[in-house]
């Protein structure tokens, strides 16, 4: 069981007042808040062992490197990778996807090849593939979703062929919270020899992840959405695949030897970590995962599901409020429209009541287009949220309706 009072005390920002009102932060899909355990660990790191990693023979450098590698080890266990060499530190989800798009693309994509992407993906899981396809004259094809925002399996299967080289799908859609059937999607893609990238940006923080069980070829996520600092992210890739791929960025630390005649690249994971890594960001990720593990991933999932169900029920009673997606197959996010009220108007008024939600396209314009809307109001949960906060949201929405009707 979650001790919500204790947890809320861990997050100093939750006590903030905005416009004189208590903050109700329901924009966790955009970024998560950080517990003191992360904030002060980072301050402590800078105050005691900060030093560039992998480089020196001196004490601090060695300490800092140890923590960095401990973080890699922790991520490996957290997502159940086979080896820590399969865990690459990046800047974030977007950086991870771009790395794959470039590096996998250079090696495996040629003219006429096809890449399948779900039509409700985040722009970060569309644009890199578009750019790759343009460079290589490959074809980007969208996988359609049904009116419940779920991938239409039969359509997906029809799109698969020997031309398909890669399939990219979010485990949980950031626009609607839809949990996609990634295991099935992966299995079917593999039958055609296609590789699958799973965008875990909206799932890693909500339920436990097992990349071996999923059998995905790539898995990506951002630290800042899982209670760590901004500026750190992860790319998991199967070792045998990553080793075949050329490096993405060149620079310090990703080489074995450099000369103007011939440069030899380092082994995994360093081959993909050019320049000074965000080792403090990685350390914050270590601390964030430790924090989550202390609470318990199962407990978090249970509590968040309870919250989400409560919110679904409550919001469903508001006339004119239309939820997009299927509540039963949903995680962390509720996305809805209000009849005759613009999402921007709603967001502005909620904001004045201290309630932070996200409005607009959620960096998923094709998803909006699919449902013939310009945008939605999105509330997204964390385990530090409460039912009381959902009541405040509920009342806020009633107030919004009253003001615009």
């Amino acid at each position: 069981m979650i001790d919500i009072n204790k947890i809320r005390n861990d997050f100093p920002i939750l006590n903030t007042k905005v416009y004189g009102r208590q903050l109700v932060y329901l924009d966790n899909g955009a970024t998560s808040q950080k517990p003191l355990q992360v904030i002060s660990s980072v301050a402590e790191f800078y105050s005691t062992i900060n030093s560039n990693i992998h480089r020196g023979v001196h004490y601090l450098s060695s300490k800092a490197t140890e923590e960095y590698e401990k973080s890699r080890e922790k991520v490996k266990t957290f997502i159940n990778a086979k080896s820590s060499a399969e865990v690459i530190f990046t800047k974030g989800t977007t950086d991870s996807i771009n790395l794959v798009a470039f590096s996998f693309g250079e090696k495996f994509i040629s003219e006429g090849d096809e890449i399948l992407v779900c039509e409700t993906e985040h722009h970060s899981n569309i644009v890199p593939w578009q750019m790759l396809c343009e460079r290589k004259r490959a074809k980007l094809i969208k996988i359609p979703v049904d009116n419940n925002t779920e991938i239409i399996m039969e359509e997906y299967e029809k799109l698969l062929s020997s031309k398909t080289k890669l399939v990219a799908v979010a485990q949980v859609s950031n626009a609607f919270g839809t949990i996609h059937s990634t295991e099935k999607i992966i299995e079917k893609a593999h039958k055609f020899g296609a590789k699958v990238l799973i965008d875990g940006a909206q799932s890693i923080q909500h339920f436990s992840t097992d990349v071996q069980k999923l059998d995905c070829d790539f898995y990506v996520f951002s630290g800042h959405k899982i209670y760590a600092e901004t500026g750190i992210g992860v790319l998991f890739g199967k070792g045998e695949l990553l080793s075949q791929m050329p490096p993405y960025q060149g620079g310090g630390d990703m080489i074995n030897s450099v000369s103007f005649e011939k440069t030899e690249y380092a082994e995994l994971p360093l081959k993909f970590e050019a320049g000074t890594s965000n080792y403090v960001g990685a350390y914050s990720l270590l601390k964030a995962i430790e924090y989550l593990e202390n609470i318990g991933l199962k407990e978090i999932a249970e509590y968040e599901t309870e919250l989400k169900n409560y919110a679904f029920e409550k919001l469903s009673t508001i006339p004119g409020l239309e939820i997009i997606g299927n509540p039963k197959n949903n995680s962390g996010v509720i996305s809805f429209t209000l009849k005759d009220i613009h999402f921007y108007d709603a967001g502005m008024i909620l904001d004045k009541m201290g309630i932070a939600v996200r409005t607009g396209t959620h960096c998923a314009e094709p998803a909006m287009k699919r449902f013939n809307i310009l945008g939605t109001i999105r509330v997204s949960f964390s385990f530090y949220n409460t039912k009381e906060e959902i009541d405040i949201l509920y009342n806020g929405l009633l107030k919004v309706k009253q003001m615009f009707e």
Partner: protein
Amino acid sequence: MITAEIQNSIVEEFEVFDEWLDKYEYIIELGNELKPYDEKHKTKSNLISGCQSRVWLNAELIEGKVIFTADSDAIITKGIIALLIKILSERTPYEILNTELFFLDKIGLKENLSPTRANGLVSMIKQMKNYALAFKTIVENKK
């Protein structure tokens, strides 16, 4: 009345509200009362896209004065548009170019003009000034 005076009178109007929501209630009222925008002017070239709300702006030069009409799909944006039109429409290009908009700051609604809020209003004001500049050239060349 010069533009600064209109702005001051708006600021006075807003002084009666202590509560944020009351301010916005009033803005919504203004938005609902905004003079209807001619549908034929809802062209792509008149569209200013913010991430959040869309704004259409039309400008005409009539007897040396610029007439602005505008619309938005969001009512709060429309309310602020109403205020901007009250201040800047039916003015000479010269007046428009010389107006410094201070009222939003004074009534505590500056955030609506923050480039980071992406409601299209910042681009709208820029666009209004651009029109004024273009019309100024026309006016001057006529002389």
